[in-house]
């Protein structure tokens, strides 16, 4: 019974996910090898690796790859660092703790499209945005965020939205931190910093791994924020891989090339995942 039971428990999840993965993947694989443009219905002649070649030789391709990696890396870093700090901050009771916790989580409730419009229109506009106002209050020239720092602007928007996720996971994880152990260490004379690095961080290791892997997956397909604010520009400064796929899929309606692009995205994701697992994989156990 002990051998069968675990398998039976996992079966529904594994089977459903398998079907969910395999059918679109098979279709995407098929489409990537044929000439299939929605605007030209009819035969789908075999195209060999033409679609892949076309996608890779796009002048924006390598910029898109690097922007994708930059975006993923920056957002993960920002959410990890500030996530841990904020979770620690609210880990002890203080007046209004409940409200503060809800406020900290609130950005996650906003729809990505609204998030993008919010930042573009209300915060970052160099004339009537709030940030421009703040800059002017300090006597400085307002920053033209979307023009001069397009990728950074997208990173800020996405970090703002995902920080609550990290905070929530870390808050939950800190709940199971052994208080007695920390007290004992403090009695023994360990400083706050030492307690932090030798007790808290290791405890959070698994939560960090979870946050990193989940965010990586979602950040790979960031697209609404880019489409609404900068449309990938100026030039290709804020174009990422998913945006390139979008161009092929929903502007050109070229399903063949879009499928090839999607497979490239999967390959990139796998490479990043292997790399991340190497760093933090043991923490999952």
């Amino acid at each position, binding site marked *: 019974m002990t051998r069968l039971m675990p398998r039976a428990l996992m079966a529904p999840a594994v089977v459903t996910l398998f079907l969910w993965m395999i059918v679109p993947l098979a279709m995407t694989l098929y489409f990537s090898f044929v000439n299939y443009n929605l605007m030209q219905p009819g035969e789908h002649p075999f195209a060999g690796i033409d679609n892949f070649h076309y996608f890779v030789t796009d002048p924006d391709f390598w910029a898109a790859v690097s922007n994708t990696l930059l975006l993923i890396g920056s957002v993960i870093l920002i959410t990890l660092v500030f996530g841990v700090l904020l979770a620690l901050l609210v880990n002890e009771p203080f007046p209004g703790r409940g409200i503060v916790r809800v406020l900290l989580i609130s950005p996650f409730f906003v*729809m990505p499209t609204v998030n993008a419009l919010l930042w573009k229109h209300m915060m970052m506009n160099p004339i009537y945005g709030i940030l421009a106002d703040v800059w002017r209050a300090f006597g400085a020239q307002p920053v033209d965020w979307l023009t001069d720092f397009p990728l950074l602007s997208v990173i800020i928007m996405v970090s703002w939205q995902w920080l609550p996720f990290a905070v929530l996971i870390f808050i939950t994880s800190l709940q199971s931190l052994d208080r007695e152990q920390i007290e004992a260490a403090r009695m023994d004379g360990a400083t706050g910093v030492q307690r932090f690095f030798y007790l808290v961080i290791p405890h959070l290791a698994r939560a960090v791994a979870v946050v990193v892997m989940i965010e990586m997956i979602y950040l790979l*397909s960031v697209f609404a924020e880019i489409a609404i604010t900068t449309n990938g520009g100026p030039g290709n400064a804020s174009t990422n891989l998913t945006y390139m796929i979008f161009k092929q899929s929903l502007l050109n309606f070229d399903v063949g090339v879009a499928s090839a692009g999607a497979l490239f995205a999967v390959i990139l994701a796998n490479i990043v995942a292997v790399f991340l697992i190497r760093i933090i994989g043991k923490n999952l156990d």
Partner: protein
Amino acid sequence: MPNENHLAHMARTLGAWFAALLLFFPLGWLFLTAFKTELQAIHVPPLFVFEPTLDNFSEVQRRSDYLLYARNSLITSVVSTVLGLLIAAPAAYSMAFFRTRRTRDILMWMLSTKMMPAVGALVPIYVLAQMAGMLDSLSALIIVFTLSNLPIMVWMLYSNYKDIPPEILEAARMDGASLWTEFRHVVMPLSVGGMASTGLLCLVLSWNEAFWALNLTSAKAGTLATLIASYSSPEGLFWAKLSAASLLAIAPIVVFGWFSQKQLVQGLTFGAVK
């Protein structure tokens, strides 16, 4: 000594409030803008004091079928979250407490099912849904949401279960508890916080999901994401109206989040356990 603690306590309070308000500020600004006129919304410098109006909300009510969209959002989010938890919890439990060599591989594989950007899989899924006659149906959305969130749920629950010290389970097993008793009386109470936060996060992810909601639905199964899509960037000032529509779209979820925040941080208390 007491002073130090007092000072640290004040620093903590101030720091926490400052961070919270900073993080909340854009959302708060959205809230304010929902009560402005379009002209007030684009005012330079930004207006903090103004005469509020409810016009935007009534416009949203008149223009679109808010109740239908809200109902659809509610159904798809809640059902997909519950369904997901029912499928994910056993799997996470199994992987956390009956670890094998393949456990990490399976976890990674589950995550890899999300690696394909939705926009690349649009045509295959659309054609599939069409063939199954499931375009513009709530069931299609529920299936898509459940399966999209399943890997996340498994991961988060796995992490949560791993946080439970094995001594407790040992103790229960030595007392002769069956699997079900073990789960219901030992694991579940200790992981309420984790399950609640997993559920809430996936609820929010489904609630805000816009890509599939827009592409797989038309007249009947649209969610609040569709509502928002009808307010963004037409030709003409729309900012105050969009703010109002956004508030109406996220209000149910925020209210739910507020009420469940106690469960979110309920967790292990080592003193009681020991």
